[in-house]
């Protein structure tokens, strides 16, 4: 019986402590101590994630990996060619467009990417080893080789969290090469849906879906012309107001180890 009554005061002490820390954290009053805590604790998950990526029993089909990398390079070249054609047309009509310069991309290592079954199910968010100290802001885009990885949703002093493009919290305006407009939403479980496409527009299987661009005046946000995914199936119901499509990202999110964050120039 002694044990039964003794836990109430202990519970209240720790509950009050937890709520105080939660309140202080919500109001940003722990910004002094949090960086120190992050610095002392972040090495462990970083090390574990690095080991995990190199485990021998997580099979990596080399031939498929090689083909995927070649595919990414070809898509990148295709985008460059498309961009050059547009810039050429813009120069002819005396307008100028600017691309994403290297000086606005910050390389960041992935130090955590929790998934239900590591290596089997895809993660929906990643933890990066860059934070406020490195000028990372909430809303910044995360990219890899002209592909959109996701968007930064939380930043602390040394770390940041990005929701992947498959995360249900993601919704952004997109377009195809031929200029068809729509909205992409993450559906979780590695699924992305293209919605709000007019029935009169023509979508094709294997069409690439690109970001329309969502940068603010400081250059923070999602840059335009990044590949979100490729159309795998189209749902066109005659009576529906809009048509939909299922997309698949070209990236293997659980194989990524380094990504790039769009930062202020």
């Amino acid at each position: 019986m002694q044990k039964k009554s003794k836990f109430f005061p202990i519970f209240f002490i720790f509950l009050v402590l937890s709520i105080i820390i939660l309140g202080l954290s919500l109001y940003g009053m722990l910004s002094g101590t949090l960086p120190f805590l992050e610095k002392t604790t972040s090495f462990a998950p970083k090390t574990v994630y690095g080991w995990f990526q190199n485990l021998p029993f997580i099979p990596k089909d080399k031939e498929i990996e090689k083909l995927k990398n070649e595919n990414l390079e070809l898509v990148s070249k295709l985008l460059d060619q498309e961009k050059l054609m547009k810039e050429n047309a813009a120069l002819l009509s005396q307008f100028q467009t600017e691309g994403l310069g290297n000086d606005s991309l910050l390389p960041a290592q992935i130090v955590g990417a929790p998934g239900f079954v590591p290596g089997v199910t895809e993660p929906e968010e990643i933890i990066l080893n860059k934070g406020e100290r490195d000028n990372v802001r909430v809303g910044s885009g995360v990219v890899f080789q002209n592909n959109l990885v996701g968007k930064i949703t939380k930043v602390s002093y040394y770390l940041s969290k990005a929701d992947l493009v498959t995360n249900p919290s993601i919704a952004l305006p997109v377009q195809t090469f031929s200029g068809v407009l729509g909205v992409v939403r993450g559906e979780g479980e590695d699924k992305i849906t293209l919605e709000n496409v007019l029935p009169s527009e023509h979508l094709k299987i294997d069409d690439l879906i690109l970001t329309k661009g969502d940068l603010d005046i400081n250059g923070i946000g999602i840059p335009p012309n990044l590949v979100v995914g490729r159309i795998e199936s189209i749902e066109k119901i005659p009576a529906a107001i809009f048509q939909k499509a299922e997309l698949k990202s070209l990236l293997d999110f659980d194989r990524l180890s380094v990504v790039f964050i769009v930062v202020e120039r």
Partner: protein
Amino acid sequence: MWLFLIFIVVASVIFGAITTLPLALVVILCLSVIFKNNFSVFALAFFMGLYLDIILVRTLGQSSTFFVVFIFLVFLYERKFEIQTAPFVFLSSFFGTLSYLFIFGYNHVLEQAVVSSVIGVLLFRLLTIAFKYQK
């Protein structure tokens, strides 16, 4: 024995980096069922929660509040019923994991809850055998 327990605690927290399974919750539950020291269990829940919030870039205090309340509910149940049983560990792991994943917005909630429950029961069996052997 203590080294073994420390290893389990550290491993479950570190593996927060690669899996969404709340192994920390399962470990705290098993230790609360077996250990008689209330203060240690609540302190463990509190600090493991803080650590998870730091490495997963969440608002500090969220996980520790959840874990402390969860352990409180476990101890409340103990006032009426026996908790050092595998069915209790299975059910409390299941519902604890279900609530945790639902609150923090993860997918595959049901599957993860079942897997966590199985891991919880296995860990509970392992710890009870280890304690009996030590005695």
